[in-house]
């Protein structure tokens, strides 16, 4: 092998504390090094040209650049050596800036260390091999999991770009949390007025297949070609026949069913269309509430249905499909606030959640938009809002800020005044967090124009007194003085958490999730909607709680990533993956057992069991390599021999 070594001064960044010239001289004695030099800026245009010229002039077959971190410029130099006709993997970097010149003060020690790092890089490079990507065809279809506003946005953007989209929604209708909201901050515009048309677009888009009342059963395969199975849950209504006329819901004799859409604010029937704007506008039977199922007789809906759509015998149905990319947009749930004994733990009917209050405010809600408190239907005059219920609370394991509660509480205080002009709102808060366009102005308006009284302090107790509730808190701005507020209605700004089943879905998708169940993005800054599993993207609150504008933005961002991915007919695989030496493999299966990506399978080679890496699934972590006792599985570019060569460059001879 003929290796060229280039020691970069990086101006004075390296040259200031490393004697680059002497490192270059020393490098010349390293194995297979036939050329070594120092250069002012290796990454600059002349610097790269110098490398290319040297490759050609000295017929180099491999290059080591000692400069900054490979996490920065490895791709740059790989492209450079490729331009000179070498395989891009015949290149190694020694990080003598971040790991040497910037952290060590002693020039002699730095110079010595830099030379050793070059020696390690040379030792490894001697064992590098040309690596070539494989290309494989992709399925131009995207699976979007979750039909809230983020998922809707992602689905529509993908569909508009010409991709097939499969949208899977757990509930009988898409719309998500946003569809439950009355108005949205900071514009106080009607939520359903802006979301509704988008929902209709989904229903009508020729490229979108919608599965509502359905969940992802399993995911296998890999980027470009996932195999997905969706479980369509039995609704006991044949949706092909259902016209959404709603006759059944009117005649259903079982009227005490929990109203999921309305957050239980009022009861509903056993057969429902969740809300007037539901997409799809189809009826479904809540089995636990239906007399046909609980008592074994009723059949009213079946009799009344003009199209004969009711089918009590309906079973769950599994649908399988192939998709090229996946967008997870599963949103959030409110945390279970009843852990708070001080707020009554659910005992007081007039202590409600913010989302329940949205339904009370909504014209399409059970009260027709008249705010009536649950206990006696009276219109409340004094409304107390308590923020940070289940947010920023280490004691219950919810240390994070939910992000949107300050804003919706302000909005709800404004709406309260709009609905009940003679009302007074009180808001107990910890800090007001309003860092968005027009947000801070909004929280100011609620206080200045709408007269909401903001009290900075925590509530320690709510207790009933007559038909009122006494809310006891402190006002920390008043020196910790105790404050008792007589409330007709208490609205808790309950924080969010990853929606139920998030970890299970993450496991199906082979993506990471944090300790709260939120999915992990690929990089907190640079890969906010990507995951570390190629082809799986994130949108909306499943990645971390966020408001509508951010969710929509992420929906579009995730769509852009999916569209970008599937814009090519063929994908190139990363060749830094594991490979099995079939001659050495004994078929013990330990690699298969540990592979986090199910990227190794058993194959039968002339009657013998062997392991085989599925090249497009392998992510190159090397766990199999470290597990295989006979070293039959080797991670290309990080083989045992390569790592051993680096160790031996330091520790042997």
């Amino acid at each position, binding site marked *: 092998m003929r290796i060229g070594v280039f020691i970069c001064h990086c101006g004075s960044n390296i040259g200031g504390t490393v004697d680059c010239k002497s490192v270059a001289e020393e490098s010349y004695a390293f194995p297979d090094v036939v050329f070594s030099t120092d250069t002012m800026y290796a990454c600059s245009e002349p610097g790269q040209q110098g490398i290319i010229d040297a490759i050609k002039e000295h017929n180099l077959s491999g290059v080591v650049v000692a400069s900054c971190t490979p996490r920065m410029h490895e791709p740059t130099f790989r492209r450079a050596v490729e331009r000179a006709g070498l395989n891009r993997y015949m290149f190694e970097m020694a990080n003598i800036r971040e790991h040497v010149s910037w952290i060590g003060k002693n020039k002699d020690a730095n110079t010595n260390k830099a030379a050793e790092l070059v020696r390690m890089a040379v030792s490894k490079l001697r064992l590098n091999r040309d690596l070539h990507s494989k290309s494989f065809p992709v399925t131009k279809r995207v699976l979007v999991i979750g039909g809230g506003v983020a998922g809707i946005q992602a689905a529509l953007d993908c569909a508009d770009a010409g991709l097939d989209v499969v949208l899977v929604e757990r509930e009988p209708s898409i719309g998500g949390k946003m569809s439950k909201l009355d108005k949205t901050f900071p514009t106080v515009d009607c939520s359903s007025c802006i979301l509704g048309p988008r929902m209709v677009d989904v229903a009508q888009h020729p490229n979108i297949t919608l599965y509502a009342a359905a969940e992802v059963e399993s995911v296998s395969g890999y980027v470009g070609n996932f195999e997905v199975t969706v479980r369509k849950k039995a609704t006991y209504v044949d949706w092909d026949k259902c016209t959404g006329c709603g006759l059944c819901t009117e005649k259903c004799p079982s009227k005490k069913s929990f109203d999921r859409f309305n957050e239980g604010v009022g009861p509903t029937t056993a057969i429902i269309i969740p809300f007037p704007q539901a997409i799809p506008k189809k009826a479904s039977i809540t089995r636990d509430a239906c007399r046909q199922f609980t008592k074994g007789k009723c059949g009213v809906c079946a009799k009344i249905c003009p199209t004969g759509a009711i089918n009590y015998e309906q079973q769950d149905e599994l649908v399988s499909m192939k998709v090229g990319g996946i967008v997870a947009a599963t949103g959030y749930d409110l945390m279970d606030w009843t852990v708070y004994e001080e707020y009554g733990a659910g005992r007081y009917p007039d202590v409600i959640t913010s989302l329940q209050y949205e339904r009370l405010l909504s014209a399409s809600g059970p009260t027709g938009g008249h705010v009536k408190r649950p206990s006696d239907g009276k219109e409340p005059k004094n409304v107390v809002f308590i923020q940070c219920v289940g947010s920023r609370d280490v004691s219950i394991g919810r240390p994070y800020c939910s992000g949107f509660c300050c804003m919706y509480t302000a909005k709800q205080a404004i709406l309260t005044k709009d609905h009940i002009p003679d009302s007074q709102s009180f808001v107990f808060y910890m800090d007001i967090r309003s860092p968005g366009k027009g947000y801070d102005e909004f929280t100011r308006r609620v206080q200045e124009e709408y007269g909401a009284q903001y009290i900075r302090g925590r509530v320690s107790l709510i207790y009933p007194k007559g038909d009122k509730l006494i809310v006891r808190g402190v006002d920390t701005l008043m020196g910790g003085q105790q404050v008792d507020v007589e409330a007709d209605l208490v609205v808790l700004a309950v924080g969010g958490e990853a929606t139920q089943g998030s970890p299970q879905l993450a496991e199906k998708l082979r993506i990471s999730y944090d300790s709260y169940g939120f999915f992990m993005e690929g990089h907190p800054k640079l890969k906010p909607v990507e995951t570390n599993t190629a082809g799986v993207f994130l949108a909306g609150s499943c990645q971390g709680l966020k408001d509508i504008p951010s969710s929509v933005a992420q929906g579009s961002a995730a769509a852009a990533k999916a569209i970008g991915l599937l814009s090519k007919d063929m994908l190139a695989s990363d060749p830094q993956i594991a490979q099995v030496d079939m001659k050495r493999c004994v078929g013990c299966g*330990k690699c298969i057992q540990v592979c986090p990506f199910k990227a190794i399978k058993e194959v039968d080679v002339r009657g013998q069991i062997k392991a085989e890496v599925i090249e497009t699934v392998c992510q190159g972590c090397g766990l199999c390599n470290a597990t295989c006792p*006979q070293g*039959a599985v080797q991670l290309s570019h990080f083989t045992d021999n390569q790592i*051993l060569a680096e160790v031996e460059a330091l520790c042997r001879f």
Partner: protein
Amino acid sequence: MGMQKELQAAIKAILPEVDCVIGWGSGPDPLHGAPLFMRSEDDANRFASGFFAVNNPALFLPEYKGKKVAVVVKGCDARSVGQLLSEGLIKREEVSLIGFPCQGVVDHDKVAAALGEKGEMGEVTAVLEEGDALVLTLRGETVRLNKADVTAEKCMRCQYPNAHIADTFVGEKREPVATADDFADLAVFEAMSLEERQAFWEKEMSRCIRCYACRNACPLCVCRDHCVATSRDPSWLTQADSVKDKLFFQVIHATHLAGRCTGCGECQRACPVGIPVLLLKRSLARSVEKLFAYRAGIDEGTPPLLTFTLEEPTIKERSW
């Protein structure tokens, strides 16, 4: 010799169903048994159980994959079988186990030491078992040895003398010798300082001849002919006659067995130059038992180093 006859009967009963029955026969001298592969009644008549049936027949099972075999197992052998099964290296339906209450086996090194100046083991012309004693004849004289003094260490701490998995169990189960492994052997070793231990290995490993009998006698070594010890790709070891390389091989073997080694001791027994190579594996077994409450070959489930839990309450990570 009732046990021997009963076992022979059990072997003969299963012979028609299997390719062969693996057990023990006699070796080149009265103190040594040898593995015996029985395919006929004649073979079964040569079966010899007892104090000299030291070999672990589980070693041979992976070779017979795809064929149905029966194997006579001591308690420790059954542990090896258990581990092979849990790792899927052999199939349960292909193996029939004949268990019996093991009374312990000989440690030849101890016999040699006990004989001392009286002669070498190879000079022993006859051996009789009389209760707790062994009566040896050599150089025309008889030497009485206390069986307990020449019993293998593993038997002295045996918790599982009765094969814990067996399709046929011959005889009455016996009481275990010990209820837990106290790793007293390690405690003895650890009375040495770190420097002394390093010097110990330096001295012991210096006589290693790199024959790899330790490895090949190990029933759980999966690599067999593809061991990294002799490969160049990957190349973990040089071929130099160095203590470093020889000790490193022992570390390789031991770490490959971490969480898998059942402590059968065949590696150490096989070593022709008597290097106490089991120590490293015992040390790892102790760690694994402490950290993961896992005893290879006994506890079901994935070997602990091939799995994980999100929280590891027993692992105290570096606070810095």
